[in-house]
């Protein structure tokens, strides 16, 4: 809202009583409580930060000593690699599994349902241990006639490397979650949109890719970001495979020197920074998919 142009008053409109409201200055709604609330929040945050900075318990010297330390940076890279690979594989799986679960085909539906059920409920830790230690349970994997003779066989302990096991576990785990995220997005799209697409004779795959998914994106994105942040932190579970990601690395370090707090803080602050970066990205992607929904 802007001030009214006083030019309008000069157009010679009859100046009856009360004076035409056009002459009046518009005052935007005032919100005194906002300021009180803002002040209160600022005080609390300031006090907390003050405590953080001045309290010797946090041991900022150690924190800064390790924050950019080489092994930490290397570990951060591993974390990012695992996160990205897990997210991409996971969402690729989810985009396949979600329409399967919604399809009318009972086989596809059950397979998808079963997959989601199992891989959502088995703890990532257990899955990682399972994949990394396949050799513990199965000495050899063989391809061949079911319950019959085999053609090829592998030694399982050489089949899956630690990093491979981590990726496999993360991907399967994420796919199960992503499938439900995508399904929620699809459910949120007005069914008339698909009818319109069907009436135009657009092929199924294209319907999904061009009509359904872009509209579902609005409901998918915040959840996908949730899952990504979660994944970023979940990668710490790969510590069981002795893979040097961020959280593992700080554990190794505080295992050595006993300075738990500043080192946990190193990992935490990195997570906070990465999440902030992700949030900024999320903001722009959300804005992109909000086009056409202005009103």
């Amino acid at each position, binding site marked *: 809202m802007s001030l009214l142009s006083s030019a309008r008053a000069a157009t010679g409109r009859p100046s009856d009583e009360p004076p035409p*409201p056009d002459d009046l200055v518009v005052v935007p709604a005032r919100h005194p409580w906002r300021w009180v609330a803002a002040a209160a929040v600022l005080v609390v945050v300031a006090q907390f930060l003050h405590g953080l900075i001045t309290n010797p318990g946090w041991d900022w010297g150690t924190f800064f000593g390790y924050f950019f330390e080489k092994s930490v940076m290397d570990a951060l890279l591993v974390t990012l690699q695992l996160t990205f690979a897990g997210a991409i594989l996971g969402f690729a799986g989810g985009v396949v599994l979600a329409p399967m679960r919604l399809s009318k085909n009972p086989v596809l539906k059950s397979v998808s349902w079963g997959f989601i059920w199992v891989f959502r409920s088995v703890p990532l830790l257990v899955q990682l241990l399972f994949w990394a230690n396949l050799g513990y349970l199965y000495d050899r994997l063989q391809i061949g006639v079911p319950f019959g003779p085999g053609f090829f066989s592998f030694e399982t302990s050489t089949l899956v490397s630690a990093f491979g096991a981590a990726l496999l576990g993360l991907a399967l785990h994420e796919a199960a979650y992503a499938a439900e995220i995508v399904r929620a997005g699809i459910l949120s799209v007005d069914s008339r949109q698909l009818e319109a697409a069907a009436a135009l004779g657009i092929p199924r795959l294209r319907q999904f890719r061009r009509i359904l998914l872009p509209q579902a994106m609005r409901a998918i994105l915040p959840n996908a970001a949730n899952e990504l942040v979660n994944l970023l932190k979940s990668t710490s579970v790969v510590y069981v495979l002795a893979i040097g990601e961020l959280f593992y690395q700080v554990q190794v370090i505080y295992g050595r020197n006993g300075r738990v707090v500043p080192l946990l803080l190193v990992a935490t602050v990195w997570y906070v920074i990465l999440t902030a970066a992700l949030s900024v990205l999320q903001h722009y992607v959300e804005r992109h998919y909000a086009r056409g929904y202005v009103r």
Partner: protein
Amino acid sequence: MIELTGVTKSFGTLEVLHDVDLTVPAGSVTVVIGPSGSGKSTLLRCINHLEKVDRGRVRVDGELIGYRRVGNKLHELSERHILKQRRDIGFVFQTFNLFPHMTALQNVLEAVGKEAEPRGRELLARVGLADKVDAYPRQLSGGQQQRVAIARALALEPKLVLFDEPTSALDPELVGEVLDVMRDLAKAGTTMVVVTHEIGFAREVADTIVFLDEGRLLEQGPPAEVLDNPQHERTKAFLSKVLV
């Protein structure tokens, strides 16, 4: 009574309403006609403050909509106050906008509360939907949905009702029935503003007809005057195309 003075509204660079002055006397029916995209819906939306005007004022029953005057200043009202003002203003959307998770009856009762159930049923019966009270919007035909939307707007017994093409999905029989409903409302002193493309309907229902073109209010007057003896070239051209 509604009073619009110098109402101007733009979307980006597109000026959709330009300096509209309009007075609607209490208890009268004003019909807004005009080409598609001329700003009719936007005009209605400005009246109940769903769209904030860029310039000008909207008053209903002498009360400024969306603002409160203190001395020589206009204070924006809080959302709560605006919502209260809207309870006196019924609105029938061009796209109906029924609540899909509620049955027809629930849609009608949502703003008035469950106590009003008899009245809700009566309203639905009046628009010919006695047997569809428990149907969800997706189970209703276009015309049935439109009638639910009308019943919903009337349930609050508003002083003013804004209809955005209330008969677009209705067959000729039902148009007659909706006309009856409107006549009753007018008799009870309800003010109405109706946007419509059906000139026949406009002629039947209107006390005043207003012709809008490209956001400008070109002509206004009683139906006989505007429809049969338009002054403006644009109005003439427009009305000449009416299929009879």
